[in-house]
């Protein structure tokens, strides 16, 4: 179980991006972090995975605990070995490596070859498409295939908590559905906790059990996925559905009213 208590994060000791965030992820659950651009969602993931420090960011206050153990002072490698694995935003595959080599890198901290083979066939089981493409150069795969590869690479580490940063970014709705279907299956089969950062609120709340809405570095709303889906303001501002249930046409509202302020 992941427990984040009141963390504050700043970059370069100047730019404060998180102002006291508390989030928890129960074992085996899917949790979504929602919010507009710049809300600090990605920073939360990087704070957990330890990648923050590489980018000159620092946790100034608060704690991050994984199964009761504090991990906010650990390095990215140590955290990765604990089983907390982040799949970065923007389909960051290793462009000059083949698809299978990409996956193998994901299993870097596994000790023996046998385990790696087992993980490989597990990933190919979830993404049959990747098996067909395994000798292709990753840089030339399509966007959807690259996203599958990035998720598959995170799966290779057989994570206990998998953090996915905008898996739907720039993909066709069909592909988004496919990928989320696989994420759901992976979560159910292996009881892997998943922390999801997503702009596509609808698909995220269909998958997640619990959600947090973030704005300007704060959590402004949280609750079960069903609760969030039922909230009028979430519907209106993130799904574009008005109170009456019809698709809202922004043409009809005055401009100054359009921006939602939570606080």
């Amino acid at each position, binding site marked *: 179980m992941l427990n984040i208590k009141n963390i504050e994060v700043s970059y370069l000791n100047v730019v404060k991006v998180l102002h006291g965030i508390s989030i928890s992820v129960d074992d085996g659950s899917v949790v979504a972090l929602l919010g507009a651009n710049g809300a600090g969602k990605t920073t939360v993931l990087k704070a957990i995975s330890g990648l923050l420090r590489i980018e000159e960011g620092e946790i100034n206050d608060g704690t991050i605990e994984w199964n009761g153990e504090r991990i906010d002072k650990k390095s990215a490698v140590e955290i990765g070995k604990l089983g907390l*694995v982040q799949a*970065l935003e923007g389909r960051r595959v290793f*462009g*000059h*490596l083949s698809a299978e080599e990409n996956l193998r*890198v994901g299993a*870097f901290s596994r000790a023996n070859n046998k385990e790696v083979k087992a993980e490989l066939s597990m990933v190919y089981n979830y993404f049959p498409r990747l098996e067909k493409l395994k000798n292709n150069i990753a*840089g030339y795969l399509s966007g959807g295939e690259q996203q599958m590869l990035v998720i598959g690479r995170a799966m290779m580490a057989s994570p206990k908590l998998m953090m996915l940063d905008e898996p739907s970014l720039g993909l066709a709705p069909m592909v988004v559905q496919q990928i989320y279907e696989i994420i759901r299956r992976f979560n159910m089969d292996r009881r892997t906790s998943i922390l999801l950062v997503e702009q596509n609120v609808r698909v995220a709340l269909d998958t997640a059990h619990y959600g947090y809405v973030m704005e300007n570095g704060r959590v402004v709303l949280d609750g079960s996925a069903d609760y969030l889906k039922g909230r009028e303001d979430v519907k209106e501002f993130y799904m574009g559905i008005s109170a009456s249930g019809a698709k809202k046409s922004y043409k009809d509202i005055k401009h100054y009213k359009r921006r939602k302020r939570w606080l």
Partner: protein
Amino acid sequence: MELLIQNIVTGLTTGMIYALIALGFALIWKSSGVANLALGQLVLISSWFTYGMLVQLKIPFLIGMLLTIVFAILLGWLIERLALRPLIGQPILSLIAVTLGLAYFLEGLTAFIWPQGQGYLPKAFPQDPIQIGTATVQQELLWGAVISLVLFILLSLFFKYHKMGIAMRATADDQLAIQACAVPVNRIFSMSWIFACIVAAIGGILISSIAAINYGLVETGFKSFSVVILGGMESFLGCIIAGPLIGICETFGGSLFGSSVKELIPFLIIIIVIMFKPFGLFGEERIERI
């Protein structure tokens, strides 16, 4: 006809050794994107170290070789630790400038420890020339070429199949994503420097046991730059093909126009290649999906 074959074989074999040293450049470039300008000086210092072991301290040949390899490993580790690691995250130009500083430092250090300027290693290989058809070739050159080829194959296999090798290539592509995969990048960088120093040391020993140890070894390092540029900066295959090619051009240039032109040819090739094929023969093109 004899001259032709002789030139080809000599060029081919010396070129193989250039290729081996060039691998040292490609290794570091491939994993960290740093151009190692201290290549020739690494060759120089490890050759002098071998000299110190074998000639000055009179250590038996095999133990001396082993000590040289250990020296190369330590050197690579130290360089990465002290000169490059503090600069991780800085603009790539500062890292390259550091290798330039390192080049002059190592050069000064060797001049300080071994002021004699010229030294000879005991001959490692049989001296009798070999007849190939009608041409006579120095046997030691062939040995050098075979050793280079074997090392080349071993390293290529390592990069293709070993998880560390794959991770080293991945690091070149995306340094943040590799850390998200729990791969310690520091170790990757220090591995690549260690490997580079080892191949530089072996290349240095091969060349200096055939010829002599002197400042010319630094120029050999520069010639290896022309190998990587012709072959493509990150391509191992490029190195092993471009090396012999440059070797052959060099020997032919030498026998046609005299030895002063010989030294010029690799650098002439650099200029021509950069004009017409900036990624080299086998260089990775930037993959950009639009």
